[in-house]
């Protein structure tokens, strides 16, 4: 579904990606592991058009998408849940969802919003509240709901568990698994390597802008190097 072929990208003179190649098949949940600064976030940003690739190819559903701008890539069916501040705090819950459907027009948007509210009743209760007043876990739900509003076929998650309370992490991972079970493909960057590998089908390990290891998530859980570097021995 998604293929990266020796993609390089960077910021100014810094080269963050040095020829990254990876693939995600339809319906898979793939995770991207690695230390801080390894290039995981840049990989996601390059896919979603927030960073332009300097060389290499990115193919989504048989079409080259590198060089397209971010709105066009959202329109093609890729949603990006960035790390850090996940919602627009001064917009209401409903406005946050509405902006997720930014690239779409038409009547189905309301129906999709009802679907999100049905999946996350707490958001429905708080629909008129500014998103900044939600708890961390609720904000993450809202961010996921907002991503779903663009009707993506592939969702990119960047550190979905970062800064969340343990119970919220569990709920978030549950939601991501559900999203995958309803047929949406997921590529996710996650520092909680153990949790990520347990739910993923396959995983890639990045180091210094390159993919250094890949395989079935189950196998990587028992890989000596991965164990030592990312699973705390």
């Amino acid at each position, binding site marked *: 579904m998604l293929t990266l072929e020796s993609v390089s990208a960077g910021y100014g003179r810094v080269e963050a990606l040095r020829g990254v190649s990876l693939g995600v098949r339809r319906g898979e949940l793939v995770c991207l592991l690695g230390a801080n600064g390894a290039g995981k976030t840049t990989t996601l940003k390059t896919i*979603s058009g*927030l960073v332009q690739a300097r060389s290499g190819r990115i193919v989504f559903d048989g079409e080259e998408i590198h060089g397209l*701008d*971010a*709105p066009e*890539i*959202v*329109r093609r069916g890729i*949603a*990006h*849940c*960035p790390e850090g*501040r*996940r*919602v*627009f*705090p*001064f*917009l209401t819950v409903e*406005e946050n969802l*509405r*902006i*997720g459907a*930014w*690239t779409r027009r038409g009547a189905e948007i309301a129906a999709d919003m009802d679907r999100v509210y049905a999946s996350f009743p707490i958001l429905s209760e708080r629909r008129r509240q500014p998103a900044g007043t939600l708890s961390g876990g609720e904000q993450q739900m809202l961010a996921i709901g*907002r991503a779903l509003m*663009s009707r993506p076929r592939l969702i990119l998650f960047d550190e979905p568990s970062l800064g969340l309370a343990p119970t919220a992490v569990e709920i978030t991972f549950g939601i991501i698994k559900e999203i995958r079970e309803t047929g949406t493909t997921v590529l996710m960057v996650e520092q909680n390597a153990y949790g990520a590998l347990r739910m993923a089908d396959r995983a890639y390990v990045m180091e210094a802008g390159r993919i250094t290891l890949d395989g079935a998530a189950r196998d990587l859980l028992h890989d000596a190097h991965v164990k030592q570097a990312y699973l705390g021995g």
Partner: protein
Amino acid sequence: MQHGVARRSAIVLLAGLLLTTPFWLPNPYHLHILIMAGIFSILALSLNLLLGYTGLLSLGHAAFFGIGAYTSALLALKAEWPFVAGFVAAVMLAGGSGYAIGRLALRLRGAYFVLVTISFAGVASLVSVNWMELTNGPLGLPGIPAAEVAGFVFRTKRAVYYLVLAVAGLAYLVCRRLVRSRMGRAFVALRENEALAASVGVDGARHLGLATVISAGMAGGAGSLYAHYTRFVSPEVFLFSYTVTMVIMVVAGGKGTLAGPIVGAVIFTILPEALREATSWQWQMLLYGVLLILTLLFLPRGIVPALTAWRDRR
């Protein structure tokens, strides 16, 4: 329900008050202050679109005001255009310069936008002083005809009051419509987190550029009203202190709210005049400064947000 009724009666009361003001406040000096408050309301509303909703700080807003004033004045004096056409041209030309500024400054955000807008106002001011043949330089342009709409001439202060009230009301409605639209949500999203906004597909440069055009156009309209009210335009319209006054009105009134800029404009137009009547000139600006500092100290988010919070707490 009760809330809605209270709100509606408050709006009716306010509208009645504004519409009858010239009849129970016949003093022309007081009326003059209210007219200036109306013109500054339009300017503050326009600046608030940028500063309050998109988060862009324009420190050259007086330039759009001045361009509007000069456009309207020159077209009336040299080409004998009717007021309405001059007003539209003032809005368009100011909006057009807003477009140019946006194209120039929005490649880089933040401080660069501020710097470009300041320099732009400086250039506009220099042109108005030095291009003698067109602008008559520092002597200014006297003898601008009074505004005229469909045969009615706005010659008295009372008439101008209603004209300014109508345009300010229109500016308010435009802002309200815009802020509550899809585009308004994009403005706020870009202010809060541009990277996140980009990730959902909002085109930042395009929307911020559009906000600059609309804001500049509104300021140009205010300039046109000012020119046809005072009947005289000089390079003073480009003064930096006008921009500072606008920023004070927006910030003290409550940036990012619809009513805030108007409340700020009315208070900070009346305040210096009231202080002038109450004290001697030495104390006037000092007290103005102290009152401003106290406002920002105790109501850091502005008067309107503070009132809203107080109402919600009750």
